[in-house]
């Protein structure tokens, strides 16, 4: 087993809360077994910023709320054989997509920013300025789930998914036998 080349995994957190990355750690001691089979390339866990080479599996947390998210996601699609969306935000847009509900407005994006930085009842922004540093990526008109921007091969549901579900999915993908989840593992009620 050890002579097989290790599978390469890349991960990214787009418009999410990093909770799904934290949930990766909930695999607990099985991580030790997992690390015998895989190595991490581009990922916030390794702090590698660019793909060093093509990866077998890309794991995406979060949806797309700005142009940089789109850029990263497209880059992952080009460089990964299998792309896995992890968590509600990647799959459906999740919490950030609440701003998509501002729909009966001529300028929904402006309304959203003003609510967040100026008018909101709990806003504490003494400068009354909406952040606009040139280094900040431009926001998209709305929050997009990953599958609207690129093709996604698998989705791991949950907010955040449990360690068991993540392990089940990764183990299945690595052995080439992933058949979907056991129903009990993805029941949330």
């Amino acid at each position, binding site marked *: 087993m050890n002579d097989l080349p290790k599978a390469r995994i890349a991960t990214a957190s787009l418009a999410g809360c990093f909770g799904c990355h934290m949930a990766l750690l909930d695999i607990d001691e099985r991580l030790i077994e997992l690390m015998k089979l895989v190595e991490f390339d581009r990922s916030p866990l390794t702090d590698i910023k660019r793909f060093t080479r093509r990866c077998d599996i890309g794991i995406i947390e979060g949806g797309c709320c*700005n*142009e*940089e998210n*789109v*850029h990263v996601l*497209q880059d992952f*699609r*080009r460089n990964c054989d299998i792309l896995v969306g992890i968590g509600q935000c990647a799959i459906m847009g999740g919490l950030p997509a609440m701003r998509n509900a501002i729909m009966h407005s001529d*300028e*929904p*994006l*402006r309304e959203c*920013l003003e609510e967040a930085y100026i008018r909101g009842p709990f806003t504490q922004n003494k400068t009354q300025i909406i952040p*606009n540093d*040139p280094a*900040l*990526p*431009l*926001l*998209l*008109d*709305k929050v*997009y789930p990953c599958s*609207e*921007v*690129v*093709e996604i091969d698998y989705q791991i549901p949950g907010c955040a998914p449990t360690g068991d579900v993540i392990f089940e999915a990764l183990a299945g993908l690595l052995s080439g036998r992933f058949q979907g989840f056991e129903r009990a593992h993805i029941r949330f009620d």
Partner: protein
Amino acid sequence: MTTGTTQDTDQGQIALICARHDNDPHRMLDILRDVQDRFRCISRATMQTVAEKTGLTEVAVEGVASFYAFLSLEPKGRVTIRLCDDIVDRFAGLVEVTEAFEAALGITVGQTSADGVFSLEYTPCIGMCDQAPAAMINDLVVTNLTPEKVREITAALKDGKRPEDLISDRFDDLSPHARATRMVDNNIRHAGAVLLGPVPADAGLQKALEQTPARIIEEIEASGLRGCGGAGFTTGMKWRFAAQAEADRKFIICNADEGEPGTFKDRVLLTERPHLLIEGMTIAARAVGAREGILYLRGEYVYLRPLIEEVLAERRAKGLLGKTIMGVEGFDFDIRLQMGAGAYICGEEGALISSCEGLPGEPKTRPPFPVTCGYLGFPTVVNNVETFCHAARILDCGAQWFFDMGTEGSHGTKLFSVSGDCINPGIYELSYGLSVRALLEMAGGEDAAAVLVGGPSGTMIARDTFDRKLTFDDLATGGAIVVFSAERNILEIVEYYMSFFVHESCGYCTPCRVGNVFLQKAVAKFRQGLANPADIAYLKDLSATIIETSRCGLGMTSPNPILSTLENFPLVYSAMVKPPKDRIRATFDIQSAISDARVLAKRRSSIYDKDFTK
């Protein structure tokens, strides 16, 4: 006059309108239609008054007022022009006609002129496909429009002429029938033996009254008559169920809400055979033991209202409606005319009953079926105009006579409304069992590349299957035959029909309300060349879900334009499909997604604008 007194008089008038309908909440649609006619909108204050008078909540009144396309919460112009936005009209030059109206009136579609005189809007098929493009001007209809004709019409209206004067200088002197035929051509191209040939007056009713009600139902059952509205339920069985139901009151409802795009046969029957229709309803009443009837006329056919009312009055005067009909002691039956207000869904019998009850036109949960629990909870027979007319003729000429026409399982004749790319659009009364090709030859549409049988909820067939037969078992149709030549874009047609269903979904159930929007967007993707191979499976999958989970017939048939073209015109779809580059979605457009932010942030994208430093 101060505002206060205007308010008072308005209130008074609304109260009068409500009183005219006995302050009956079940007559809400009539009340609101009258209010709309009088005030050209249904304001918040109006809704309050109507709610008080009818004992309903304001939100219930608003529910009805906001449901129907012909009722508006915003003020409409004194002259409201509704352009028929059917695909047939579009192919017949609707764009030029619209531009002519917009230029002449100085408003765009959806607007009301500043002086409150003109409103211009689009409305789905108004049942004039054989004389497209057509439009409604208030309660009247103008057909065969051209830009020149539009300029004449608008000039006359701006001159202060009434819309009626456009039809004839002596409009007021004309009989209702003459008015109707001045406005709209019947275009009867082939008269069959049953409906459009010579029809002796009330012979069927005469014979029916000589028989027992049970015998009438046996006759209808023996004739093999099936419903002509589209679903094809056996008429005799429907009557039998209603006759067997025990109830204090029973109802006969005629469904004249002919909304399926491309269908206009009931319009011709209502114009030319109104007596036969009422005769059929009267026979049905005799058969099932009903004393009350409703004729539900679609809002688009309001120009036929005077004609129908005249016929009803005439029959009452002759003792053919009302008490002791034709001298038969204890046989009382009368009909009220219920106007619709522009809602396709009301052609569905449950929704039609809801609409008659003064509710928003939402379908009812089935079972119970209307024959046991229909209008106001009483047993109700709902039949199409053509079905009632057939019934009257069957009673006159005998079940065997009718049964011998047509084919096994599809007996008698059927009215086909042929429109689109053919030389002779119009009405053809033919026996069941004819092939599509034979009908196309009669109509001068041999060059057709595609024929839509049964309207958008029916089937679109291609040239290689024109030998299929027009029967219930092969190609069932409520009457619509829409012909498309090779110049037409199939996907444009499909996308139009999906947008029609999106517009006409009542919104009650999610699969229909949301699913059809997704289907429409998916078809749009194909048209733009942005679809990938997986989208074909997506179309089928989503269609199956909508059909499986929708609450009424609208959602169960709305994916048909897609499904039948996928089956019969697969190349149209596969030609538009291309595999995505790098598996990145072609439908996601980053430039339009960041364009708002570019304006707000007053800078360009450092990633997607190459010249962002400028």
